[in-house]
């Protein structure tokens, strides 16, 4: 029996997403145990620079810059933003103090989830859905039967599509909140 998209791709996706958060908690814990927690402060800067650098892909995609292979830039976008997010999560730690930076972290995690959706799930899911649909039709099933058999998979793909379309707006919100957090640090620093 063929496993559904949920088992084959959504669950692994959740696994890698949880791993990102657990890696951040683990690294933060190690830094605290080693007395090197101050490093986390600077990881926020490095992580932000990495995420900003990863937007070269977005600029290339919209033809604002002409240089660079889109495929290579996309890979760089994925890699740099993943590492950047990890660093910012370590920077945030588990200290719940002000709402603004935590709102930025929460929105960042949603942006990551929407990005993961595009990277890990959507393309494969669409191909699998088409393949299964073609197979069912070849087997002589009627439209209603095909739709019935593919209900769970097509619903999952629809949800994924919606997730992906929110990636850029959510990233915009994240960028705005993060910029305000940086601005508040610059205004009120040396506390």
């Amino acid at each position, binding site marked *: 029996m063929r496993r559904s998209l949920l088992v084959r791709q959504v669950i692994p996706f959740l696994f890698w997403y949880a791993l990102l958060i657990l890696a951040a908690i683990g690294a933060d814990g190690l830094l605290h145990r080693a007395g090197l*927690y101050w490093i986390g402060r600077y990881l926020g800067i490095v992580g932000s620079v990495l995420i900003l650098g990863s937007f070269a892909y977005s600029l290339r995609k919209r033809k604002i810059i002409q240089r660079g292979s889109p495929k290579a830039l996309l890979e760089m976008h994925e890699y740099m933003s993943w590492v950047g997010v990890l660093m910012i999560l370590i920077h945030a730690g588990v*200290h719940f103090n002000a*709402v603004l930076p935590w*709102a930025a972290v929460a929105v960042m995690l949603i942006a990551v989830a929407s990005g993961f959706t595009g990277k890990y799930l959507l393309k494969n899911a669409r191909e699998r859905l088409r393949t299964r649909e073609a197979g069912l039709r070849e087997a002589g099933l009627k439209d209603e039967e095909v739709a019935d058999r593919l209900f769970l998979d097509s619903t999952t793909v629809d949800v994924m599509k919606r997730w992906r379309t929110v990636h*850029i707006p959510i990233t*915009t919100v994240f960028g*705005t909140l993060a910029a305000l957090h940086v601005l508040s640090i610059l205004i009120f*620093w040396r506390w």
Partner: protein
Amino acid sequence: MRLLLILAVTLILSLALAVAYPDVMIKPGELSAGHRGLERACLGCHAPIRGASSASCLSCHKLDRIGRATTAGLPLPAERFAKLRFHAGLRETDCMRCHTLHASVRHRKEATFQHALLAPAVRGDCRSCHLDRKPADELHSRLNDGCGSCHNTAAWKSAVFDHRALASGTDCAACHGKDKPEDELHPRVTKSCVYCHTTKRWRPAKFDHNRYFRFDANHPADCQVCHTDGSTFSIYTCYGCHEHSPAGILAEHREEGIRNVENCARCHRSGQENEAEGGGEQREGEEEDDD
């Protein structure tokens, strides 16, 4: 266009909330107990871009009053607050080097007390602040010098022990009595450890007896047999047993023209007679040059 709208809405909404509720939106942790009530008065301490300034602290906390009286002028008892009076002699007045009002960074500041800011006289007198930190153990009771001889200002635990600070001098056993190995050699040794060991570490011991004389079954490592003078290992004699007598040894060596038969180990580095190294030994007619 849609993105611009999202950006504008987020920006305006966040800014409005940050201005209206700075204590919720941007304050990095609760203020210390004495500063409650200032939660929304960020600019009372923080100058935009320049950050929190010591001048704002000093407007309430006069350095020469710290540890003596509260900011309201009420006197503070010396037995509890005398250790805070070093503030009066600070070399710099950069309050934020050590202090913070916000909980999120308090642990960091407390861990990095800046001894460099203290006046030299205060900095050199550790006990003026750390009265109760000297351990009541045997080791520390023997120490007379300041803590700085062994400890640094970063942490107590990274102490580098300097034996020169000990009042007990070279009486190693006073502290290291239990460290003496129960092997064949050490129980026989009655002299100070410093004859063979340094104060930095036990191993490697600098002394190698084989360089002078190699032990064997007939010449065991029984210090007192050869080193009969209890005050030093540098003096020895081979005439402590029945085998070697001065008259017999002298008679035997005179045939070789050797008349100094006191410093045997100079030629005989073991009990094997045929291993004797004759080079440089005094013979009849040569100047005596023993050390």
